[in-house]
């Protein structure tokens, strides 16, 4: 299958801190990919670059054949006006455009529209797909009514799809946390994406909620939508992901199937940690023994 998203040598620097440092990976159509790595490894920063919220220092991101990172002519770099121009939307792709191309995302800490109802939250996401002009809104033409009706119907369809069964007129802040997560996913789906980026969708969910989240993500994939998720809960990742990318210090250190990842010594050292029964921390031992122990571990599990 062809690659839907191609990230090549992505770099992002904040001041002196390298948040993302040469990241490359690709997402194929309709697959579930998990991005894991320790806290602060640059996962969310990479997400923000891919969805065009951050402008990467260098590198390229190609989504569905379209470039998300645009190069400004050198003259603007020389004049140091690039940032200014970019902040006005020149020489960059705005996140809203990327969303129109078919990439949707959720945020690490829920960012629903707090003063809108559940239904309006989802309707808002259909902004780009709605045929509704200024005058038709003012005059309430039949075309406007049809658009609003279609929009509401579609939004309800997504709410049903994610399993939200509550009152659609409630303000989102009145919902329990797990329900808010659902609404956020419904909202992302309503943008009609080909690729869905989920940033820690399971954070703060309890066991049952996690199980239904797994079901939901599988259902989304069944619609033909590729899913990329950042997640800490290894249990969830192992159950869901077809492929895993491991980040550390903004670099990709591994890429493979869950089985390959759990047995990759580099990953174990950087992220999963080494099983070292001894209380005293002994560096030499840690280095020599790690491989042997890993083999034991993976052996016993499979």
């Amino acid at each position: 299958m062809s690659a839907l998203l191609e990230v090549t040598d992505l770099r992002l620097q904040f001041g002196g801190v390298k948040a993302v440092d040469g990241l490359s990976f690709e997402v194929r159509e309709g697959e579930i990919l998990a991005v894991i790595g320790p806290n602060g490894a640059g996962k969310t920063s990479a997400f923000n670059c891919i969805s065009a919220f951050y402008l990467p220092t260098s590198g390229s991101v190609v989504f569905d054949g379209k470039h998300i990172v645009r190069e400004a002519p050198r003259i603007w770099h020389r004049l140091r006006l690039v940032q200014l121009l970019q902040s006005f939307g020149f020489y960059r792709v705005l996140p809203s455009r990327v969303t129109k191309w078919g990439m949707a995302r959720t945020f690490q800490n829920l960012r629903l529209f707090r003063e809108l109802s559940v239904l309006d939250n989802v309707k808002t996401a259909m902004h780009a797909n709605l045929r509704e002009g200024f005058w038709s809104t003012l005059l309430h033409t039949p075309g406007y009514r049809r658009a609003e009706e279609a929009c509401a119907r579609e939004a309800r369809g997504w709410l049903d799809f994610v399993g939200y069964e509550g009152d659609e007129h409630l303000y989102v802040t009145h919902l329990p946390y797990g329900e808010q997560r659902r609404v956020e996913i419904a909202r992302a789906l309503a943008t009609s994406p080909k690729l869905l980026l989920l940033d820690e969708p399971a954070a703060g969910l309890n066991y049952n909620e996690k199980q239904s989240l797994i079901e939901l993500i599988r259902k989304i994939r069944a619609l033909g939508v590729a899913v990329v998720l950042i997640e800490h809960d290894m249990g969830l990742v192992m159950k869901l992901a077809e492929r895993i990318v491991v980040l550390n210090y903004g670099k990709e250190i591994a890429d493979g199937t869950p089985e390959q990842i759990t047995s990759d010594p580099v990953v174990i050292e950087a992220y999963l940690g080494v099983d070292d029964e001894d209380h005293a921390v002994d560096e030499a031992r840690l280095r020599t023994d790690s491989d042997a122990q890993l083999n034991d571990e993976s052996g016993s599990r499979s």
Partner: protein
Amino acid sequence: MARRLDLALKHAPLRAPAPLFDRPRAARGVFDSQTGFMRALGGVAVLFLVALPFIDASRYTMSIAISALIYVMLCMGLNVVVGYAGLLDLGYIAFFAVGAYVSGIFTTVLGWPMWAALPATVLACIIAGIIIGAPTLRLRSDYLAIVTLGFGEIIRITANNLTITGGPSGIHGIPSWDFFGWSFEDGLTVFGLEFPERVVFYYFVAAVVIIVGVIGAGRLAKGKLGRAWKAVRDDEDAAEAMGINTYVAKISAYIIGAVWAGLAGQLMATHLSAISPNSFQFLYSALILMAVVLGGMGSTPGVIIGALFVSLAPELLRDFAEWRFLIFGVLLVVVMLFRPAGLWPATAILPWLKRDRPQPPPFTSATAAVPPSVLESPSGAPDADVREGGRG
């Protein structure tokens, strides 16, 4: 049916599966639904507007009523900018000035009839909205406040210094509305009923414009554009992520706000037939903002109440006129401290409808068939909703 609905949406790669079940239809009665009640309330207000001249058509009453209506128009416009789009504008009166001056200059200097000056006014306001909107798009809310304030002062001082605007004394002798040779000045007799006072005509013109303005702003707020504004207000990044171009959404809010204010400005210019820079001081920007905030940002009934309060209070409290700005200042602080959403907040639910609202449903999921692990909290109800607070 479904196909016709589909045509209302642009082609997109993914469509939602059809809704699984019919949600209960919203009630439509006057007393059992929010929208029904608000519509009825609006109807009553319109009836009152029409009936007022028949109750008391004295020059004084009509004059106060017209200025109150102009305030309502201004507040509805500012409400689009501040209440819906969440952009604090402290120089809003500048657009009012642009409307008043443009219509004044076109009618007195160029001698155009008032109705012909209308498109020019609207156009000038759109341009003014873009001029102030464009550079401020990427500013934070507090910088925005100062920039708009500066813009308001620039307009006022410019009007004060230019000769075409009449300098400090302003423009006099602005003509009234006239149609095909007949002017409001002439009076009219219809079916033996005499309308001698031009002020009564102004009242009706103002009432029609305001009704259109209020309904129009309300309709815009409910459609696609209004949802975009509110999304930008609640969370700009999330709005971008939903495919809303936040630049366009903000600029459009500025433009709509500017046009509403410009129309109000034209109404005022024709009503008073004279304008001067003193009517466009920062004080008035602050008063309009105060009306919107007192009433409830983003809430149509709230904003109307606020506008009526701010415009009528000085008339009702004649003896305290000296104190009114002091009282307004204190009131603003008190409202923010104790009722930050205003007197009639946008999220208000009619009290007798509150109990009908279902409580948030418990977490039910058909898919959660797997038994909880031993690590599951023993007391943990299935609707657990834990969230780490300290994360930023």
